[in-house]
């Protein structure tokens, strides 16, 4: 490189939810980071729903926190409506969610980034990537500045060749009033990367002062709110309610009448949208029998004059949006401030990345976030922190950090991406995690704080707290397992709770295991042993109730470990394996799975194909040894 405007260890392109975490991780590990954004006011911007978390997504956020990321702390600082979802269901499927002060969230993230001495935040568009010998060397901006970097993390979100649709109006751009990134996409294609199209959308925003709140049903936040971060003591921001209203016949009529004006229905959008988050026109078209859909009216911030009507994502023309909004109770007089739109964008089919999120084509180039086909701030941030960690590990000459499916939702996310290309924007669900019971949101610290601390990203103190929590729970369970329940009291208790009779000599833990019995019920069965703190009691209760299932999962994980971790050489010649189905050969060649476990999960790869791989791997290794 002849001339450079700066030399960095890691350069991150894009400062959304993925980009921020991708920049912070290596910076906090002591590496020099360039964070390049089209607009510094858009750092950490919430382009759609002003909320963080939700089922499975909340898990991701707490895992990011345990590893030493920022997202949980940010939402704890600016959250205005915290709610633990699925409270009536089991602990493994509960998930924290919080509405954020939208502007406060970006401002918080900008502050964190600006205060991180190892990050240079620069405004600019990345126009070119410098690649020599298949390895990344740096980037060039649209205005010609040249930066060298050992690793580059691309987190361009929905901005690559993005087009926004509102009715028949079509505008190039990834977000309202923000331009698309055209040149970078072109450059990636010349490097050999394949792209495909996906679609997403957002609802219109209405003016808060024009909503008639008396016509909507109030939903109060949790008191006290449960923080996301394991390090947050308490939530200090004033909390607001959320309101629920519903669409009706009139709304549906208006939409139905105007379906032909929707770019989705006119077939102008080719990319697949998320089935779990359909536009309102989609809902009305596909579930025609349903007379009404609910709409959450979410305030965008304490001082904000905007309301986000969650559930009304649309790409209908502005006049139709206005008309149907006003058919909804509470919104009759509302002013629509910003219209909703659909956005279609390029993503890189995820068979082009490894489990480290490094691309298979260019060494040192990482892809994270929506451009890998995912959707959601949390999914993006999870990839961001992993790409950041792995870029740092690459600088240090360490092996990439790969979390397993049994270890973290983040592991599930990355593994899913490297085994199948998303056909719709990929969102995390708890059902994607086959080890769901051992991946509770409130154990993310026990699972991952040691990993974060070992990296040097999470604090030793956090890891110690997690270890203490785990140890105390184990100690209490050991006590309950050794303590024989006093016969008389135990029977009195189980009779009262209709939890079945107790035989003499029964241990207290056996009684707690019964579905009808909670930890507080067994308090009289303890002796003088010091009582654990309330959060720990809950933890003990959950562990005891899940024990049988959890042991089974752990056994399964152990059983599969041998195959799971058997590595497949990067240069392994699938085309020389006789007998693989065409589909399997094609997919394996595209994905280049790093282990047999990953290979076995690739779509279209059957057990027969896996057994063949085993046979040929044996031979391959023998031959390699000989030569």
């Amino acid at each position, binding site marked *: 490189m002849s001339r450079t405007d700066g030399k960095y260890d890691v350069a991150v392109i894009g400062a959304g939810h993925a980009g921020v975490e991708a920049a912070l991780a290596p910076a906090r590990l002591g590496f020099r980071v360039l964070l390049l954004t089209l607009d510094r006011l858009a750092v950490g911007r919430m382009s759609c729903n002003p909320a963080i978390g939700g089922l499975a997504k909340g898990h991701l956020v707490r895992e990011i926190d345990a590893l030493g990321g920022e997202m949980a702390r940010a939402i704890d600082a600016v959250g205005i409506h915290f709610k633990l979802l699925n409270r009536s269901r089991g602990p493994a499927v509960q*998930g924290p969610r919080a509405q954020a002060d939208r502007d406060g969230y970006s401002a918080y993230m900008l502050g964190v980034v600006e205060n991180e001495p190892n990050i240079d935040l620069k405004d600019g568009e990345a126009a070119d990537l410098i690649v020599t010998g298949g390895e990344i060397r740096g980037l060039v901006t649209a205005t010609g500045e040249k930066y060298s970097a050992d690793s580059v993390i691309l987190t361009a979100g929905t901005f690559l060749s993005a087009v926004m649709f509102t009715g028949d109006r079509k505008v190039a751009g990834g977000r309202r009033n923000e331009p698309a990134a055209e040149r970078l996409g072109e450059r990636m294609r010349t490097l050999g990367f394949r792209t495909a199209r996906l679609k997403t959308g957002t609802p219109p925003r209405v003016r808060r002062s024009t909503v008639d709140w008396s016509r909507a049903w109030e939903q109060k936040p949790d008191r006290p709110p449960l923080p996301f971060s394991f390090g947050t003591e308490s939530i200090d921001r004033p909390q607001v309610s959320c309101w629920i209203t519903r669409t009706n016949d009139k709304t549906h009529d208006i939409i139905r009448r105007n379906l032909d004006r929707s770019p989705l229905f006119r077939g102008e959008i080719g990319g697949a949208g998320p089935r779990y988050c359909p536009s309102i026109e989609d809902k009305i078209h596909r579930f025609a029998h349903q007379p009404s*859909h609910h709409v959450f009216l979410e305030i965008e911030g304490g001082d904000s004059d905007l309301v986000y009507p969650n559930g009304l994502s649309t790409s209908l023309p502005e006049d139709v949006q206005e008309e149907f909004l006003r058919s909804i109770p509470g919104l009759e007089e509302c002013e629509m401030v910003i219209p909703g739109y659909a956005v279609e964008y390029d993503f890189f089919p995820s068979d082009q990345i490894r489990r480290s999120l490094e691309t298979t084509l260019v060494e040192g180039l990482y892809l994270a976030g929506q451009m890998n086909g995912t959707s959601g701030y949390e999914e993006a941030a999870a990839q961001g922190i992993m790409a950041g960690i792995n870029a740092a590990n690459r600088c240090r000459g360490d092996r990439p950090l790969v979390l397993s499916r049994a270890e973290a939702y983040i592991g599930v996310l990355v593994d899913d991406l490297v085994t199948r290309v998303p056909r719709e924007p990929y969102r995390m669900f708890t059902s994607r995690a086959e080890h*769901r019971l051992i991946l509770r949101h409130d154990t993310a610290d026990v699972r991952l704080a040691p990993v974060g601390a070992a990296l040097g990203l999470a604090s030793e103190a956090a890891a110690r707290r997690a270890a203490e929590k785990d140890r105390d729970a184990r100690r209490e369970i050991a006590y309950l397992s050794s303590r024989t329940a006093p016969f008389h009291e135990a029977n009195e208790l189980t009779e009262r709770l209709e939890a079945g009779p107790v035989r003499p000599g029964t241990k207290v833990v056996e009684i707690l295991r019964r579905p009808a019995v909670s930890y507080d019920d067994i308090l009289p069965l303890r002796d003088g042993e010091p009582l654990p703190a309330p959060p720990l009691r809950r933890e003990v209760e959950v562990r005891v109730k899940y024990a049988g299932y959890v042991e089974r999962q752990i056994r399964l994980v152990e059983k599969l470990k041998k195959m799971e971790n058997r590595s497949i050489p990067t240069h392994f*010649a699938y085309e020389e394996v006789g*007998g693989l189905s065409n589909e399997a050969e094609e997919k394996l060649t595209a994905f280049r799975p790093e282990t047999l476990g990953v290979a076995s999960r690739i779509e279209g790869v059957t057990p027969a194909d896996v057994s063949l791989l*085993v046979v040929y791997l044996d031979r391959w290794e023998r031959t390699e040894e000989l030569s």
Partner: protein
Amino acid sequence: MSTILYREGDTVVAPATAPGVGALAVVRISGPDAISIADRIFSGATPSRAPLRTMHHGTILSVDGEPIDEVLLTVFRTPHSYTGEDSVEISCHGAPYLVRRIVDRVVAEGARLAGPGEFTRRAFRNGRIDLAQAEAVADVIQARSAGAARSALRQLHGGLSKRLQSMRHQLIDVLADVEADLDFAAEEEVPSYDREAVKATLGEVLTIIRDLIEKGERGRIVRDGVRVVIAGRPNAGKSTLFNALLEEDRAIVSEEPGTTRDVLEGEIELGGILFTLHDTAGEREEATGAIETEGIQRAKAKQKEADIVLRVADRSVALTGDEKRLARGEHDLPRHLLVFTKGDLPAGPDAAAFDDAPRASRPLTVCVPSGEGLDELRADLLRLAVGEKEAGAGKQGVAGDADVTSRRHLQALRTVERAVVSGAATVREGELLAEDLRAALNGLDEITGEGAREELLDEIFSRFCIGK
């Protein structure tokens, strides 16, 4: 460097019939060179020009052109063969040395000796059969009686796979409802799953699973045979009865108690089913030495593994408390049968008490010298092994409808059963129900191979003998 190894699968050869002297044996060659090798060693027709699946009479020649054996040769072309590859089957005379010479001749032409289960592995790999079918093939090979071969063949036709598939779909449907509730009900308007409907579906699945297990247990007996352990006090006549059932003098019989010290084995066939009889040392407190003590230990161990314990009591002497309880049917031991011996001697006071009892609640008395009671005993053993209905069905009927006979399949089905029972008990707690449903599905997948793993495949394929 390794290209040659991989570009084409190599060609393998092995006898496809069990070793030993039989009238005929089959040598199978499979792989890309199978037919060209046949061209070089066979005089009669030119296999490479032979139409698909045709049989040709001719001679296998040695390297020097000397005839080795007169054979029938069948040509199969990919994918229409057992392995899905080009194959040749040579039916030769059954003498082991002829078989060996033919195999050696094929190897000399460049083929490799097939490893255990390699033909089936190739068939599985080429998508010719699924895992359940591959297992069934192992069972056919290991079949030791007519009934076993029948039930293994049934499975080979994919009937089992079909039933498992439909159960799988039922479970997946339920799981989908449950997961939707867990993942979406909090945020979206998704109805909760219907607990009663879930229970009903699980009930249906359980009925099918239990039916498969029950028939499978019988099927396993058909395949592995019934292990009968003859037990009783010293000098009760165990060895005499053992010899009589075997219709040969295998055990040394003497008046002296404690003559039998080790466990003796013999096989008989009843109703198409193989029964392995184990004659054991008599149980007594005052064993006379280390060898007898060890013999008694072994006898006890054998009883634990037994499908049927045939307890023998000498009717001419006083019965022990255990024997009396057994005789009166007052026990909860499965598959225990008490039989009185020495029917030619006068009954002692304890045994005489049963003389007036109806046949159903009276122990059978046998008299070996006259042969009295032996046929009845055989019928009782068969009934105990396979149940009243099956035993009545005669030779053809037993276990004709067993779908699952392999130990691994039965084990997996029991996993499914446990998971379904557990799921039905926890329908209120969705995340645990989902866990159970997944465990049940994993269990089913273990049979059909959809969740097959390396160790599993190793285990299956290592059970094949060379040739199939």
